[in-house]
């Protein structure tokens, strides 16, 4: 994305409809869930279905200012889900609440039917790239090895096995040539790939990623999308905080529209409708800036 380099402001509706963004998919990758979703929207009727992530009645407040109101979200296993919503909609907070990093004022989160604390090993997390100090004295390989720390537990040090796993992950993201680089010498896209590699090392079942496309060039974005889709093909569940509405239909099969409360969630075909978008973005949608205009 390249905020600040383009001055074009696209009225979103026009763009979306003229480009045929809302064409229905013909593939049937996930017939069960689509079936389940279209049969009913009622909670409880899908109880027999195991959920990768189940958020119920989640309210998060900072001081007494609510950031998330009563969120319900069911994420079935094996989907690639985008969380979209305007700035300040609580996307990052939702991810952090799922990971137990912020304490909810109300509600509950389950990962495969258990609380997060019991499922740490199967959850991989990619924080926002800007959340760490890239001048930290450490190498690319070292950062990726940190993905193994959870499995190692307290005190035990990473060894040759962990370094090998880290190397494999770096190969997957095409960064094997940079292992000994100091991390501040990387470009934004390379830093993002290092973060992805670190999550891959965790070999998780559920991945939560906070804006993995932020500040990356078009080539890296494509590489990351391919990687996410491979993860889904392996049966992993991937939840991505996403900013770019233009690419939702291309990249993801599930979507959640969020603006303090949940507007909609489900398969992209059903949830990503103009009505839901208008409700999520309100008047602001008409002034939405597209990131693709200069690619």
């Amino acid at each position, binding site marked *: 994305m390249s905020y600040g380099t383009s001055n074009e402001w696209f009225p979103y509706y026009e763009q979306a409809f003229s480009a045929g963004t809302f064409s229905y998919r013909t593939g049937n990758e996930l017939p069960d869930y689509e079936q389940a979703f279209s049969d009913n929207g009622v909670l409880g009727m899908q109880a027999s279905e195991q959920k990768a992530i189940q958020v119920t009645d989640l309210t998060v407040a900072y001081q007494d200012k609510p950031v998330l109101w009563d969120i319900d979200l069911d994420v079935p296993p094996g989907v690639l889900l985008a969380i979209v919503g305007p700035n300040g909609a609580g996307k990052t907070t939702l991810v952090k609440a799922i990971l137990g990093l912020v304490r909810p004022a109300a509600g509950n989160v389950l990962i495969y039917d258990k609380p997060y604390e019991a499922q740490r090993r199967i959850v991989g997390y990619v924080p926002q790239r800007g959340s760490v*100090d890239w001048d930290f004295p450490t190498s690319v390989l070292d950062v990726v090895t940190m993905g193994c720390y959870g499995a190692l537990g307290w005190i035990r040090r990473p060894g040759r096995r962990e370094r090998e796993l880290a190397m494999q992950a770096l190969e997957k993201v095409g960064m094997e040539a940079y292992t000994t680089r100091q991390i501040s010498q990387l470009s934004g896209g390379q830093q993002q790939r290092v973060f992805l590699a670190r999550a891959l090392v965790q070999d998780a079942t559920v991945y939560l990623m906070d804006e993995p496309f932020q500040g990356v060039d078009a080539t890296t974005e494509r590489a990351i999308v391919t990687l996410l889709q491979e993860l889904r093909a392996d049966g992993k569940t991937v939840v991505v905080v996403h900013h770019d509405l233009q690419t939702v239909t291309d990249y993801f099969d599930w979507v959640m529209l969020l603006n303090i409360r949940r507007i909609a969630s489900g398969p992209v075909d059903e949830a990503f409708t103009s009505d839901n978008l208008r409700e999520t973005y309100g008047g602001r949608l008409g002034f939405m800036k597209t990131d693709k205009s200069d690619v």
Partner: protein
Amino acid sequence: METSQIEIQLIAIVTAVACALPGVFLVLRRMTLMSDAISHAILPGIVIAFFLTESLSSPLLILAAAGTGVLTVVFVELLQRTKLVKADAAIGLTFPALFSIGVILISRFAGNVHLDMDAVLLGELAYAPLNKLQAFGYDDLGPVSLYVMGMILVLNLVFILVFYKELKLVTFDASLAAALGFAPTVIHYGLMTLVSVTTVGAFDAVGSILVVALIAGPPVTAYLMTDRLSRMLMLSALIGSVNAVSGYWVAFLFDVSIAGSIATMTLLIFGFVFLVVPNRGLIAIARRHARQKWEFAQTMLVIHLFNHEGLPEAEAESAIDGLHEHLSWDPGFTNQVVRYALNNRCVSRKETQLILTAHGRTIAQKTLVQ
């Protein structure tokens, strides 16, 4: 060298290394100011424990001071959490408050006891060897402060060696650390306890103000020299020792305060490294800028020649004498750029004309394509 001289240097080295090791993590966590706060705020802890024990070398003193140090961190963070006070202001409010309590306690109750404000603030390394450890029937087992600081050094070493992985992760990416189940708060307070204990141990040697120089100086110096955490720790320890020994001898030669000299050497050595270190040093940066300036001027020159090459006006545009007018450069500067480009074989001289070499043409083409 006399025994006492060796002892003073040993105490200085041990203190410097003990301070430098946790200092690395404070610097990386951008919390150096917190060590300043702790070093001042432990004063009431020391004073109160001194009233209770009437001894300056009691272990209770260290514990009480360490407790006050951790309390300082808690106060600062509570203030910060209200979001009404920013981090720096919270530190600025907390430690003078605690420090002043200590000062008042001393002036009110300790007027006739031996608790010297100067000793607390500035320390007196020169007297440290006088206080000998007496035990098991021996009356001289070496200076007490060497044992105290030695134990604190071992404590710091063990903590950092055992929790190296956790300290690294929490410092680099606290949210991942929390998500993976490594309690960042526990590590954070563990580190703060260490800093408090180290500070109170070191106040005997260098005083509570100069201890900040020992905590911050070596790590920031080492930070300039390496980009690996493990090496930064080792370099910090080494630099701390060099500062301590060189500071001692400066004090010896000029007959001045040892603590003051050590702190001065810390700054001088930092300044030296800051200037000369490859890649990141000021000199390296200045040279890189200078080189870039000439490189860029050379590129402008070859592109100028390239643009007019083979065209009717080429003769006028590439006449050596007329270059400065066409480029609106100072004639002296133009001459230097021409010489630079000739040296790099980007251009060659053909009578009064400057013509591109194959190499220069490639540079121009590559730059223009980019």
